[in-house]
């Protein structure tokens, strides 16, 4: 069953013309993570590698391709966590870096803190020699078009958010049974400057504990925070629920208690995994036993050899 890696490219409603790119993107990211695991890399190395791929892919709302805040700027949130020590690193509202997920790992490894925000996160990035990139390099034409569209007074960014791929994330278990999670996002369309969503908040955007499993979440950030979705799912697993049942319970609770939709990828330390969502779609992919799994719509689950070219769903 080990190793295994599962990624998501966000829950929501994905326009037809963009669904192919999303599926290709999550499959390519999960392969990259799986290569790391097969080489004997840790689950932490694997989730950071997979999420770096998703951040670099302009089809997703993270790194390059992030949505813009109300001022037309990119501010990004990210988190990593490893289940052996509960070590964790996060950044919120960080600007001008290509790969926030790699910065979160530096926060975890090189500081005594767990979260750095805004200008302080940038200062730390500079001190670590992380190159600053111009904001323009993170902004796609698509992101700018959607920002303009939502500047009109009666626009509903929450509604529209579901019209684009959300957050990206990954969970993995390595051959030693260590779990890890990583989540990265440009946040919510036309958000206020300085808005922090669920992603960098431990227990909301992600959580990893070798005693129960790892979760990365996506969906309406404010709602995910209210129910601390990642931690909630792992509480259910601690009570004996499977990764799939616990994910469904967590998402159903979020829907009934705060009327919101989302999606998650979940693993347990034995390598059981789940990709579940209450939204219309979520692009996801998993790699285990040299088999690639992927899907986009509810109930969709394609499988094929890990190295074969994508056969279906695109």
């Amino acid at each position, binding site marked *: 069953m080990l190793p295994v890696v599962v990624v998501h490219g966000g829950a929501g409603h994905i326009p037809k013309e963009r669904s192919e790119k999303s599926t290709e993107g999550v499959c390519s990211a999960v392969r990259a993570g799986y290569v790391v695991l097969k080489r004997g890399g840790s689950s932490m190395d694997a989730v950071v590698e997979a999420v770096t791929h998703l951040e670099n892919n302009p089809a997703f709302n993270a790194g390059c391709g992030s949505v813009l805040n109300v001022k037309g700027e990119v*501010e990004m949130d990210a988190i990593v966590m490893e289940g052996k*020590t*509960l*070590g*964790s690193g*996060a950044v*919120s*509202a960080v600007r001008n870096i290509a790969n926030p997920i790699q910065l979160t790992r530096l926060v975890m490894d090189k*500081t*005594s*803190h*767990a*979260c*750095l*925000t*805004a*200008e*302080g*996160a940038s*200062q*730390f990035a500079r001190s670590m020699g992380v190159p600053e990139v111009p904001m323009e390099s993170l902004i796609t034409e698509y992101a700018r078009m959607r920002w303009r569209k939502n500047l009109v007074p009666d626009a509903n*960014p*929450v509604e529209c958010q579901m019209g684009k791929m959300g957050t990206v994330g990954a969970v993995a278990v390595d051959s030693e049974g260590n779990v890890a999670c990583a989540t990265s996002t440009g946040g*919510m369309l036309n*958000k*206020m*400057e*300085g*808005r*922090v*969503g669920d992603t960098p*908040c*431990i*227990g*909301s955007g992600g*959580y990893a504990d070798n005693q129960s499993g790892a979760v990365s979440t996506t969906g309406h*950030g*404010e709602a995910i*925070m*209210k*129910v*601390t979705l990642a*931690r*909630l799912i792992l*509480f259910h697993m601690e*009570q004996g629920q499977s990764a799939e049942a616990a994910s469904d319970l967590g998402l159903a609770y979020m829907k009934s*208690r*705060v009327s919101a939709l989302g999606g998650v990828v979940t693993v347990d330390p034995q390598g059981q995994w789940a990709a579940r969502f209450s939204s219309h779609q979520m692009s996801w992919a998993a790699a285990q036993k040299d088999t690639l799994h992927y899907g986009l719509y509810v109930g969709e689950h394609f499988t094929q050899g890990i190295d074969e070219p994508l056969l279906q769903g695109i």
Partner: protein
Amino acid sequence: MSAVLVVHGGAWAIPDELAKASVDGVKTAACEGFAVLKRGGSALDAVEAAVRTLEDNAVFNSGHGAALNTDGEVELDAIIMDGRTLACGAVSSVQNIAHPVSLARAVMEKTSHVMLTGRGANLFAESIGITTVPTDTLVTEYERKEWEKQKTYVTGVMEDFNSQWAHDTVGAVAVDSAGNVACATSTGGIRNKMVGRVGDSPIIGSGGYADNSSGAVSCTGHGESILKVTLARLILSHVEQGKSVADASRLSLQHMGDRVQGAGGAIVVSPSREWAATFTTERMAWAAVEHDVLWYGLEPNEKLQEKIAQ
């Protein structure tokens, strides 16, 4: 049914010279918060009032009296949460605000977001007419001296935060006569922290959590450890499993000690008016009011009481 309010002034090795002022401070804040409940105010109003009182008190590390970061500036974190709807507001790394808890409440009530950070939080404050105050009005002579003392140490000391060395975050939890619970937590964070460091206080599920179906918690202690175990949410998960609030707090703090070697404290109330103030640090200043009786303590297992003057 009657209302209950509990406050804390931080779990850490409170030095003797601050002991009396800390206990007096939490007692005053608990009475202020309880007065709101007695007037028929909501749990949310009460925890905000109690925490504002603590923020105004220079003895505590929040609002006035906050700790300084490595640049010698004040950056504040706060959260407030309403257990009825799970609505929540938080600010992190906000500068020069006298009452971060009230700004957190404004985030909850006046925006579609839960959390604002850094300059964005300050811009929001400005836009709703919350005035900023000069840094010097928030910094006490004591804090400036402590900061300078540590500044002149070898820089290695900065990296050497002992997990046992917690700090004085403030917080409050309450249940009102309608059975609604709420929590609020506010802090200046740890001394000589990196610029932009966010601790547990503004993170939902770590620094605080409130849910009418289980209870409300406000946490204090080593922030990074509290984050790792999402302490507030962990305590309530034990309550959901049928534990008393006191057992749930003890179990969770013990888990934090065993798993990540962190010390801290928590105050909890349940919708059925159970309450607890628990800590694994040397001291925690806390106070609680129920049925016009004021309970308070500072040392482990200390539980003193006095009648509130009518």
